[in-house]
């Protein structure tokens, strides 16, 4: 970059105000790119955060409702019939998968094969849990990535901006604060956006990872209990 251009582009800033828009507008295009990227990251992080918050809240509530219904003494056949069309949450999906396997073993084939039924049901439930957890965890890695890489990206913009401001010092042969300040302000703006994107990302990632863990454990607990119930049934019938 031509130092004279730097001085030209920086010097008008000294007289005008240092609002956010001016800071952005006078930045080098690399710094602009970094800022825009970080802004997009921030938007995406918050979108994921809103989405996941809603998803987990709903999932938790429907699990509560399902467990109440499950332990209320209601017939499992009826429960299966009401849910089989559209299992709308992970625990229902788990229940439906296990019940389907059970029913297939009882109703589909004439010779009832109890031998591997227990194992089959457990396998089916494990696969369902894995799928459901995968669904819950989707896009959480984005949060982790933004949380760890955001400050670095912002720092890159800062370093670039400070380089620009030093170039402007060299061009104007003047080390007064008025020459240095705009460059440093825009540079620090990049770091600020990086932090703005990274801090919520890290917090949300930790929160959501804990939530996913909790729900996965709950699913596994339910799967174990349900497997125990089915195993008792198998033993009674077999």
């Amino acid at each position: 970059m031509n130092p004279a251009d730097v001085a030209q582009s920086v010097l008008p800033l000294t007289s005008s105000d240092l609002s956010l828009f001016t800071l952005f507008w006078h930045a080098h295009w690399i710094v602009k790119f970094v800022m825009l990227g970080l802004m997009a990251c921030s938007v995406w992080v918050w979108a994921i955060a809103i989405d996941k918050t809603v998803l987990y809240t709903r999932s938790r509530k429907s699990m509560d409702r399902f467990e109440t219904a499950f332990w209320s003494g209601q017939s499992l056949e009826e429960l299966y019939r009401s849910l089989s069309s559209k299992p709308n949450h992970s625990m229902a999906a788990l229940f439906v998968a296990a019940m389907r396997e059970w029913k297939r073993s009882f109703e589909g084939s004439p010779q009832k094969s109890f031998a591997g039924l227990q194992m089959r049901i457990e396998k089916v439930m494990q696969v369902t849990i894995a799928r459901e957890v995968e669904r819950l965890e989707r896009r959480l890695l984005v949060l982790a990535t933004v949380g760890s890489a955001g400050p670095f990206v912002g720092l890159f913009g800062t370093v670039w901006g400070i380089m620009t401001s030093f170039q402007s010092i060299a061009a104007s042969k003047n080390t007064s604060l008025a020459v240095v300040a705009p460059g440093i302000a825009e540079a620090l703006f990049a770091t600020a956006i990086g932090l703005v994107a990274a801090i919520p990302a890290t917090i949300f990632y930790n929160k959501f990872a804990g939530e996913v863990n909790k729900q996965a454990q709950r699913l596994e607990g339910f799967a174990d209990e349900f497997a125990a119930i089915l195993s008792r049934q198998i033993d009674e019938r077999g």
Partner: protein
Amino acid sequence: MQIKTASAISTGLHVLVLAWATLSFSGKPFETTPAESLPVDIVSEKEFSQLTKGIKDAPKPVEMPKPIVEKKAEEPPKPVEEIKPKIDEKREVAPNKEVKQEPPPPDPIADKLKPQEKPPEKQETAAKAEPQPLPPKKPPPPKPQPKKPEFNPDKIAALLDKRDPTRKSITGNELNSAPSLGTAAGSAAQLSQSEIDALKARLYALWSPPAGAQDAGNVQITIRIKFKRDGTLAAGPQVLTSGSGPVFNAMRDSAVRAVLVGQPYTMLRPDHYEMWQEIDFVFDSSKMYSDIPVRRQ
């Protein structure tokens, strides 16, 4: 909920926050009161090395500053001048003014009025009119010399010198108690803090005589150093002092090492290369940390 909805909500939130930030975060210029400028004297290197004893904030003298001096250096005693009484010179005494006046012109009417009385009067005035020079005055007695200050017992305390009687008085050529510009540590009219001093400081910093050197007493080792213009050695250091004994050898070798290690001697400016191209440097064990005279060639 679809991720699209969440994205829309998130975008809206960001736009709101950005709008708020743009409105609220406007860099206000700091209100700064212009700092009072202080007059600063630029002291050149040469002037700095010739600082005289004084205090920092003394008024700046117009002419050459005088170092503080409390005691005069010894001077050859002047012959005592005899005090001679002054005698006023003789003055010419002018005759009285009245006498100078001419006699009034004769008034015919008055003459007629006082025909008899006038003539004798006229004569008298004529007699008085004769200039009578006064006798010359006697020379006045010799005046007493300027009178001595009166002895006032109440003011003895004020007259006493309350300073430490054993203090080190500063001796110079001229009595001067008024402080002039200078440093507190200055001791001479012209310090020699110069390139040679820098060289000395460097060599003494590098010179590490052996531990037993203190016992050997005052050992002086003179080393002839020949420099090149860039401050490196033109030739190996040449020891001029001869001596023997392990301590002397150790000190000598240490001094030679110091000379070799210290190059290049960038404190010596090439402008004066003629002055320092060959230096006889004296390493003095007794004055390791004090000022050492350096003999130049």
